[in-house]
Structure formats: C-alpha cells, structure tokens
C-alpha cells in the first residue's frame, strides 16, 4: 500500500515545467535584446578590440596582440547563442542546471553589452576592452561576495538570518585597514577582520538566541550602527591620523607555474592571499556542511531544531558557533575588500553585503551555488562601474539593479524552486 501522493507529484512536475519555461522565455528575451539592440544597433563597419594585457606573467613566447572583431557579427553570434540556450531549456526542459544556464546567458549578455559599449567608431572614448584586467577586477568583487555569501550559508544553515553581513564588511574593512597600516601585514588584518566580524556575529547571536529578538531587525540595526560608527571613527581617527589608513594593496602572490597559464594565470593564480583563502574556505565549508558530523548537526538545527534537541544536540550552542564563525568569514571579507581598495573609505561597501545575501539565495544556500551566483553578480557589479568609462547611454543605476532584479526573480519563485532551511530565522525555544 502506498500513500505516496502520485497525482500531486505529477502536478508538481507540471508546475516545475511551467517555471522552467518562464526562465527560457526570459533567456530568449535577453537574447533578442542583444540581437536587436547590440547587434543590429551597431553599424556594420564598427568593430571591437579585445586586449589581453598582461596575458600571463612571463615574457611571452605566446604574446597575443589585440583581437579585433566585428561588433555586429559578434553580438549577433552571442545573441543567437543565448537564443539556442533558451530554446534548449524550453524544449528539453533539463532537470538540472537550469539556473546555471540562466547565469551563463546573463554573462553572455554582459559580454555583448561590453562589446557594444566598446565599439569603434562609437561614442566611447576607449576603443578596446582589456579582458584580463576586466576579469581581474571582477574577481575582486566576486571574492568579496563569496566571503559574504559563505557567511550567510554558515548562519542560515543553522537557522539564523545574518543580515548584518554589510556591517561585518564595514567592521572588517575599518579595523583591517588600521591593522594593515600599522603592522604592514595583511595576515593580521585578516585576523582583525575575523575578530570584529565574529564579535558582530556574537552580538547578533546574543539578541537572536538569548532574547529571541527579530533577527532581521537586529541585523539591520547592527548595519546602521556600524556604518554610522565607522563614519564617526573615520572622522575622529583616520582624518587626524592618516597613518592609520595609509593605503595598502595586499600584495599579489603568484603561484609558480600555474600563474603562467595564459589568461587563467593572471585571473586565478596571481591573486592576494585573501583570494586563495576564499577558495580554501569554500572547500572547507562545503566539506564541513555536507560530509561531517558537525555539518549534519548544523543542518538539522537549521531544519528542525526540536528534532535535533531530542537527540541531545545543543541547538543554541550550534547556532552561536555558526553565527560567530559566519561573522568572522564576513569580517575577513571586509578586510579583503579593503585590501583590494587600498584603504578604508566611508560607505564604499555600498550594499555588497546585501548582494551577497542575494547570491546566497540564488545559490540555494549551498557554498558551490553561492560561488556561481557571486561570479554572475560580481561580473555585473564590476561591469556597471566599468561601463561608466565607456560612456554607455544606460544609467549606471540600472546596471546596479541587475543583481537585485535577478534576486527578486529568484525569490518570487520565477527561477527554479528555492527552499530555505525550514527553521531559517525562527527563534528556538526550549520547553
């Protein structure tokens, strides 16, 4: 005898297909936009130049000059590629990887936009796209988002919403700059970031777990407080004593051999220690959450805390630990951000903490998903800054909206099924 609701199951697959098709239509719309605006909108004689400097870190047996492509035809190919992907999703309805395809189309769209923006002759004062420096620049943004969304994974998997990531970024950046300026050592800066981020996490955990306050409100209060506090301290400390905020960029640590791979080398293997730390952390968090006993406890606490409690797991303790660890990760992210900018500036994290939360949702509360989402969002955020120099006739603010638009689409259930941990944000009460 089976009580499995078969009719309901088949119904759910219908609902899923409907959503898959909505995504396909979105992808096709984006593709059509690329074709009609970017490809057909570029005069036939225009072309775009791609440069790759530095291509790698050696002195070049394989130096590539500039690559010149006809803008119209390139964007047409990109647009058609998007359409093909859209058609594949629409007709084949793949069961997995729909989101990844969607992300890929988003990246293709950004590329098409970039080619179009850099077309010559055209309105842009810069007639080329430096692919290497673009990717390196975007990797810095991506890195910060990965730290932030990993922090979110740690907290929300244990059932606590950490909306204070932005505040932890600010704290990490501020203290990180101070420590880096005085010790000239970015390792200490990272430790300082971890400590301050962890402390902010502790405050959040204290109110959320001890007093069962609304986690969103506590988080927002912390962000507001940290941003005001950092402005105040900036005025009181960094302005009169600029030596505490001297402007340091974390040194690049090229990895032998690997850094010499063309394009991949400069983008992935000639980065600061923060970047490598991020990669390690992604692996560690992924492993810890899904392979270990600790991870099983964390996920149980985030899904069904009472069930966890009945088998002797200390729900409150697990949550404290994870919120503090998550805060520390975000704090390191703040220090890492500072290290890519050189010094602390008031307000320059400009909402990265919230974009990281969006990446967490888009990535379905998984470290790997968060990385994919962070890459897409990182590219689009960085592009929105880059495009200013190309004098694109689209407002910067529309481009900045892009990650949020994707997130709204995700949260509204338009793209894929998103299910947060069942006890996410729910206070736990022992009886």
């Amino acid at each position, binding site marked *: *005898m*089976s*009580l*499995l*609701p*078969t*009719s*309901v199951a088949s*119904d*759910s697959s219908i*609902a899923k297909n409907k959503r898959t098709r909505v995504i396909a239509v979105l992808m096709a719309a984006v593709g059509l936009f690329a074709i009609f605006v970017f490809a057909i909108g570029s005069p036939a004689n225009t072309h775009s130049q791609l440069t790759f400097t530095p291509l790698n870190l050696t002195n070049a047996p394989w130096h590539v000059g500039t690559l010149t492509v006809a803008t119209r035809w390139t964007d047409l190919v990109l647009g058609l590629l998007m359409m093909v992907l859209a058609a594949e999703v629409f007709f084949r309805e793949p069961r997995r990887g729909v989101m990844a395809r969607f992300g890929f189309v988003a990246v293709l769209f950004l590329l098409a936009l970039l080619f179009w923006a850099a077309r010559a002759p055209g309105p842009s004062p810069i007639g080329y796209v430096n692919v290497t420096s673009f990717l390196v620049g975007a990797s810095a943004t991506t890195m910060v988002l990965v730290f932030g969304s990993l922090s979110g994974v740690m907290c929300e998997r244990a059932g606590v919403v950490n909306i204070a990531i932005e505040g932890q970024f600010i704290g990490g950046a501020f203290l990180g700059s101070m420590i880096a300026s005085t010790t000239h050592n970015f390792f200490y800066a990272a430790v300082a970031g971890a400590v301050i981020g962890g402390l902010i996490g502790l405050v959040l955990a204290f109110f959320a777990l001890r007093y069962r306050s609304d986690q969103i409100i506590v988080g927002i209060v912390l962000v507001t407080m940290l941003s005001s506090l950092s402005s105040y301290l900036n005025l009181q400390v960094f302005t009169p004593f600029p030596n505490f905020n001297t402007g340091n960029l974390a040194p690049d640590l090229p990895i032998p051999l690997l850094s010499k791979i063309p394009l991949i080398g400069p983008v992935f293997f000639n980065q600061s220690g923060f970047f490598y730390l991020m990669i390690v952390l992604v692996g560690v968090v992924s492993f*810890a959450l899904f*392979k*270990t*006993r*600790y991870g*099983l*406890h964390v*996920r*149980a606490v985030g*899904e*069904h805390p*009472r*069930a*966890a*409690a*009945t*088998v*002797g*797991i200390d729900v409150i303790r697990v949550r404290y630990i994870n919120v503090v660890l998550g805060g520390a990760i975000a704090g390191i992210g703040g220090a890492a951000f500072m290290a890519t900018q050189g010094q602390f500036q008031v307000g320059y994290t400009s909402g990265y903490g919230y974009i990281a939360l969006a990446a967490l949702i888009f990535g379905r509360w998984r470290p790997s998903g968060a990385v994919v989402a962070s890459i897409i969002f990182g590219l689009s955020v960085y592009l929105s800054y880059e495009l200013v120099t190309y004098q694109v006739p689209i407002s910067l603010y529309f481009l900045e909206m892009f990650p949020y638009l994707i997130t709204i689409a995700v949260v509204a259930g338009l793209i894929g099924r998103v*299910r947060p941990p*069942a006890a996410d944000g729910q206070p736990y009460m022992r*009886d």
Partner: protein
Amino acid sequence: MQLELRGITKRFGSLTANDHISLTVEPGQIHSLLGENGAGKSTLMNVLFGLLSPDEGEILIDGVVTPIHDSGDAVRRGIGMVHQHFMLVPVFTVTENVVLGFEPTKSLDRIDYKRATQEIRELSHRFKLDVDPEATLENLPVGIQQRVEIIKALSHDAELLILDEPTAVLTPQEIEALMEIMRSLAAAGKSILFITHKLKEVKEIADVITVIRLGKVVGTAEPTMSEGELASMMVGRSVNLTVEKTAYDPGETVLEIRDLVVRDDRGLVAVDGVSLDIRAGEVLAVAGVQGNGQTEFVEAIVGMRRVEAGTITLRGVDITNLTPREALDAGLGHIPEDRQRDGLVLSMSVADNLVLNTPRRAPFAKCGTRNFAAINANAERLVHDFDIRTTSIFAPVSSLSGGNQQKVIVARELSRPLEFLVASQPTRGLDVGSIEYVHRQIIEYRNRGNGSLIVTSELDEAYALGDRIAVMYEGKISGVVEPSISRESIGLLMAGSSMAAAGV
C-alpha cells in the same frame, strides 16, 4: 527492561499535572497509558524522557533508582521515544535522520554512511521494519516515516519504547501494521509504553492498562473490559459513546458541489474534481487521512481559498468564490480546523469572540459604533446556554480550556441563523466530555432539519455523526458510503482503493 515510576509529581504553578503517579512496565510488555487530552500523559512522558524534571518521585530502571536529566540521558539509559509529531528532518535521508546525534565517524569528523546504512538495513530486517535507508524522508508516506522513528529509537539500543499517540496520523491499515510491529518488538523483549486516548486500540494491543485522570492514576484496567467501562474510568463518570439521532429523513439538496478544483499554498492541485450533494436533515462526514485535501476543500467552501474550477451552490444560489464575509452573510457557519488560528482571537474577550463574525450587524453595532449592552447580553446568554466555563465574559478567550474555546466557536456559529454548517475536525484535541457535547450540538442542529458537512480524520467521529460518509483520498472522493459499512472497507478507501476494490 523493567521500568518503574514511583510517586512522580510535577507541578506547574498551582496546577498539578502529575500527582504521585506510579506504574511499572515489565520487559516484553505492552503497557498502555490511557487518558484524556490534558490528563497529564504528555507531562509524564516528558518527565520520563528527561525533558522535564519531576518535583517529587523517582524513576527506577531494573530496580535501580536512575535520575534522568535530559533526553540524551534517557537515550543512554535505553529509553526511546516515538513522538506524535515526528522528530525527523523532512529534507534528510532516512539514514541521516536515524544517525543524527549518534553518528559513526571516520577521520576528519566525516560520517561513515556506509556503516550507518548497513546498520539500518540490519535493524529493519531484524524487526521487519521495511524501509529504504537512502530515501528522502519527505517523500515517504506517514506510516513509513513512523517506522523511521522506531528504527531511530532502536538504533540507540532502546529497550523501552514510548509511543506517544502513534495512531493519530495513520490509516486503519497502517495502524494494523503498527500493531504488528509493536507485537514483534514486545516478542523480542522490548518494553512498550503506549500512550493513547483511543479505546479500541488499547483493547486490541495492551497487556496492561493504566488509566490516568486529572494527573492521577485512577486504576489499572484489563484489556477485556468494555469500551464503555474504560471510557467511564477515563472520564470519571458514565459516558454515552453513541449519539442519539432521530431517523434519517433527508430533505431537498441544500449544498451542491460540482467538480470542485482547489490548489494548495504551493500551487498544487489539492482538491481534484470533487462533487457532493448534502441534503437537509443530514450530516455528511468526510473521512480521510489528514493532508488529502480536506483542509483546502473546507477553505474553498467558506471563501477562505480561491476555487480554481467547479461550482458551489447553496439552495440554488451560486456561492463559488465568495469572500469570507459574503459567505457568512450567505448563511454558512464554519467551525474551523485550527480554532486558535482561524476561529478565535485569543487575546480578545469571550464576549468579543462571540460576535466575531457579526460585529457590524444590529444589534451589536449601532451607527458604526459597538453596542456593548447587546454584545454583553449576547455573551451572558450564550455562556449560559452552551455551558461555557469561564470566569467572566470579559476574560480573554485564551484563558479557557480547549474544550471551552471550542464551545465559544460552536455557540457563535450555531446561535445565528444558518443555512448550512461546515465543521472541520470539530473535536480535535478535546476531552471526552467536550466531544460528547459538540457532537450533541451538531446532531441537534441536524435533527432540526439542517444540512451539515463534517470533516474528520477520526473514523469513530465519522461513524458517530455521519448519515453518509464520503472518503477523501489525494483530493478526490474515493467513495460515499453508508455508516453501516465495515471499518476495513473504509480503511481501503482511505488508502485510495476504488469502491469496487474496497468491496462496497
């Protein structure tokens, strides 16, 4: 394992939930703890499982005094609990659920799933608890999920199993399977403490019955005693288990439901083409295991949920997709499934709750202001007529017992002119006395020549009230039968068999 409770007392403020309770469970024995909701069964189990600490008394395991401080302690001492609301994580696999908290690990804190799966296979083989260790829990039927709970307890080497109201969510066939499992566990020497308020099950399975009432042991009963005797022990007075009904004499059709389709919150079809007619002077009971679309069905009728397709007609008037207010005005009475969420505003007074659905109507409102004289007079009258036990009509309704809260709703709905009554799980969580009362009210309403639809997951209730019984399975009506049909046949219908297959 032999377990002895000696003089266990637990007080919450002025309330004594357990008053010097003593009982002994022998190895291999199925010991039934029978009592009404609120008699103190759950408190006792929580004491035994280490979730509450007793104010007085001691727990002896195999003759040795053994204090139990927390649930981890209880598990280590060999006490396993099968919770009424499963303590299982829906998105985890069976294996992950079973090992949670007691994981076998390899290096680097990794869980040894291979070993865990192996152990689960052995256990499920040994005790005939068939389950796939790699299945995701939420995809399993409730009966199988319960097996996972049992395996979980056994995997911690439980010698005594506490089953807390284990049959509430099961079909009759699943209950039968559970009884088999309980017998085989007892045969293997495990002790079982079976908590319930269902007399039939106690009589069928128990070796020894301890009856508790108002926190005290009122005695030990033999399984051979009649249901009536057990019930009167449980309630403390003689109980009339059958409801007096006048002869079934249905009139014209009052409510007509045609091809109703309703979606649930996730957008899935929950009610899938239901057609029913309910006539004047009859109670149509809708039976079925919880979660087969009954909730959505009722909500659609009373205007709380959108009807996707199909029609609902009340005395020839189309009432499909009315707003709740329009449904009220059309004369639909509704006793909701979750009385504390949909039936009452807990922080408001008894008097206000009694006019909750007619606040704007004369005489309770006058020129847009509330007429307190009329509201209070109404409350005094209903509190008296419906025997609502409250300290005052101004007391917040949250201060009333569950049974009296339900009486407030019943009084409110039945005291106004109704065309039709829809009641969902009208006696859930109530004590026998209140159940008796609510049943009598519904039957009196029916005897006056009115139609009503009662949704229930208690088969006894469907039999007691229904002039006809419709069985709902996966959003469809799998059959409409007379109450003279056997429980076995209804059970088959509840599990999705066709009328023919169920032998109707």
